[in-house]
């Protein structure tokens, strides 16, 4: 039977617990949010001992189901002040699932200034004092842990940003190439830093295949599911060829590519940073256009980007990062953006929050528009070193806006708005406004239907149907985030009728249960309501479900669109 591993950093003790009956049917986001809501006082300071950091693999993680290797991390967010779940690929989720670990709950905080590492194995968790790796970047930590404990060791680590408790700090997860995937958003790296844990190692010794109640039924469903992923043009061809960055040109054409800190919807230099250009550059330099973030991924949307000399620069080079440092900062040098992506991984800072932040920093005059060299310098000399300026920048977009008196600050609940202008793609504006996570495109990705013609079409420039679209997607996403599945399974799930039933059949076959589509929908609703209740108790109410005023007052070219939803229309979202 699966267990809960509990770590108390105040008295430096660990326990192995049975899984309470109420948690047995939950995994991933459903489990982390349930545990945070049950055990964390909503009004606590997110960096205090009262907060808890929870890791949980999904319901299907560790099985042979394609694309099921995501790990959820949850806590109260020091950035938003609300609940947070952030999921990532890498090797850790599958290792934890195969060790029979349903969740790791880390609570309390050391009473002294000492730092620690946690060693997770089949036998439990040991807490060890850590001195040697303090202050190091994430790549060096992963190399050192592998040298110390073996090449196959799983690693969750924080860089200097997490140690310094910056609110944009993330948690890095070692991927199959010993590079990095990230629990990016919401400052979870600062929570890990507040518990004075530099890294968590995972020893896979004794890992067993997860038990499947009905192996034949599972195999049939898994085959149908994989087929749907490979048959759909987005997951089967578009994502593996161009990665997520194919969106630069599409959003630019649609006038929804936020440019120069959200003042225009199209970027002159779009072609230089586009997915098409990136693909050709990667191929010409001997990098890898296709790459998976975890074993068993058949979509392969990641890539390995090389420099002109053919040397590794970065991987997992995403549209949102390239948009943010590119169009939003008016930088058209993809090599410099790739270098910045690598630095952000090493420092351990969210590449979306930091990209949005640089747009605000340019508006504040901290650096000039388009100055990629100064951006790289600020990352290495200020943020990584934790200078006073570096700490302001490492606090994210809202931190810089507040400190420098900027009024055009694209955030919701303090979290930076990514990559899609809510004035010209209105469905995503509803998601940004209402998400329990703060501005988060992944929590209800209306771009699929507003722009990409996936799951039907809802006109991005009109208000009609947007609230319902965002609601349906947010409910479905909360459920999918509980399975350990990559969110890109949503593309085939929206279009291919066999896909979602196959996903539900896999869950049923794994646990010997009989969930229906309605049950899965209800799981999504339960998760959103649980998260919202936590947020309300923490002081985040419907008045926080709003976009910044400038979206209402500043029309964005080329469509001269404004954000024109009334408060009452936005609040309809929660009517379910």
């Amino acid at each position: 039977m699966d267990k809960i591993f509990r770590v108390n950093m105040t008295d430096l003790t660990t326990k192995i617990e049975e899984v309470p009956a109420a948690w047995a049917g939950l995994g991933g986001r459903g489990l982390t949010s349930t545990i945070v809501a049950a055990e964390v006082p909503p009004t606590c300071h997110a960096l205090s001992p009262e907060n808890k950091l929870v890791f949980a693999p999904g319901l299907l993680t560790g099985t042979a189901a394609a694309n099921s290797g995501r790990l959820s991390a949850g806590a109260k967010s020091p950035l938003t002040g609300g609940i947070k779940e952030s999921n990532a690929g890498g090797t850790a989720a599958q290792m934890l699932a195969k060790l029979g670990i349903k969740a790791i709950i880390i609570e309390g905080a050391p009473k002294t200034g000492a730092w620690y590492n946690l060693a997770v194995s089949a036998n439990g968790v040991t807490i060890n004092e850590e001195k040697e790796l303090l202050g190091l970047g994430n790549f060096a930590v992963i190399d050192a842990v592998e040298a110390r404990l073996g090449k196959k060791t799983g690693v969750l680590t924080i860089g200097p940003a997490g140690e310094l408790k910056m609110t944009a700090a993330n948690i890095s997860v070692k991927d199959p190439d010993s590079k990095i995937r990230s629990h990016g958003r919401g400052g979870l790296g600062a929570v890990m830093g507040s518990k004075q844990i530099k890294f968590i190692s995972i020893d896979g010794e004794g890992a067993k295949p997860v038990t499947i109640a009905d192996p034949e039924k599972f195999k049939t469903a898994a085959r149908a599911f994989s087929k749907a992923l490979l048959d759909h043009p987005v997951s089967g061809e578009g994502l593996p060829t161009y990665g997520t960055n194919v969106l630069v040109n599409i959003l630019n054409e649609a006038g929804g590519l936020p440019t120069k800190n959200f003042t225009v919807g199209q970027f002159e230099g779009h072609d230089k940073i586009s997915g098409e250009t990136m693909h050709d550059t990667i191929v010409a330099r001997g990098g890898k256009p296709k790459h998976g973030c975890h074993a068993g991924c058949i979509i392969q949307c990641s890539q390995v980007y090389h420099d002109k000399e053919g040397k590794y620069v970065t991987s997992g080079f995403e549209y949102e990062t390239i948009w943010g440092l590119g169009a939003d900062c008016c930088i058209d040098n993809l090599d410099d953006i790739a270098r910045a992506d690598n630095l952000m991984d090493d420092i351990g800072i969210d590449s979306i929050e930091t990209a949005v932040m640089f747009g605000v920093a340019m508006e504040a005059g901290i650096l000039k528009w388009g100055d990629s060299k100064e951006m790289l310098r600020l990352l290495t000399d200020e943020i990584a070193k934790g200078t006073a300026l570096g700490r302001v920048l490492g606090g994210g977009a809202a931190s810089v806006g507040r400190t420098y008196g900027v009024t055009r600050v694209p955030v919701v609940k303090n979290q930076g708005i990514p990559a899609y202008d809510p004035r010209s793609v209105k469905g995503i504006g509803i998601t940004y406004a209402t998400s329990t996570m703060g501005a988060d495109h992944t929590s209800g990705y209306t771009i699929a239907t507003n722009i990409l013609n996936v799951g039907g079409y809802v006109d991005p420039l009109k208000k009609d149907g947007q609230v319902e679209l965002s609601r349906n997607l947010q409910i479905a996403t909360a459920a999918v985030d509980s399975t350990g599945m990559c969110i890109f399974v949503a593309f085939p799930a929206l279009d291919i009728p066999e896909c979602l039933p196959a996903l539900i059949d896999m869950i049923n076959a794994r646990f010997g249960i009989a969930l229906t589509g309605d049950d899965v929908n209800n799981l999504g609703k339960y998760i959103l309501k649980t998260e919202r209740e936590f947020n309300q108790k923490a002081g985040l109410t419907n008045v926080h479900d709003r976009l910044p005023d400038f979206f209402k007052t500043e029309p964005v070219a080329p469509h001269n669109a404004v954000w024109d939803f009334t408060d009452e229309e936005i609040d309809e979202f929660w009517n379910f």
Partner: protein
Amino acid sequence: MQITLKLFATFRNGRFKVAEQELAEGTDVRQVVLSLGLTEEEIGIVMLNGRHGELDSKLSHGDTLSLFPLVGGG
């Protein structure tokens, strides 16, 4: 009449990124698609002057037509 035709992703292979095209009055998007050797099924997104268009949409002088296969990200 003259339009600007932009192609994206795999549609560029063996073709072009952007070209000015001289078309007969009354030409619709479908005719342009077929003239490129593409099929209707291959078309994911049609954008006409930055707004979603249809295969049946009639083109006018000065239009910008952008064609994408079905692609996505996030």
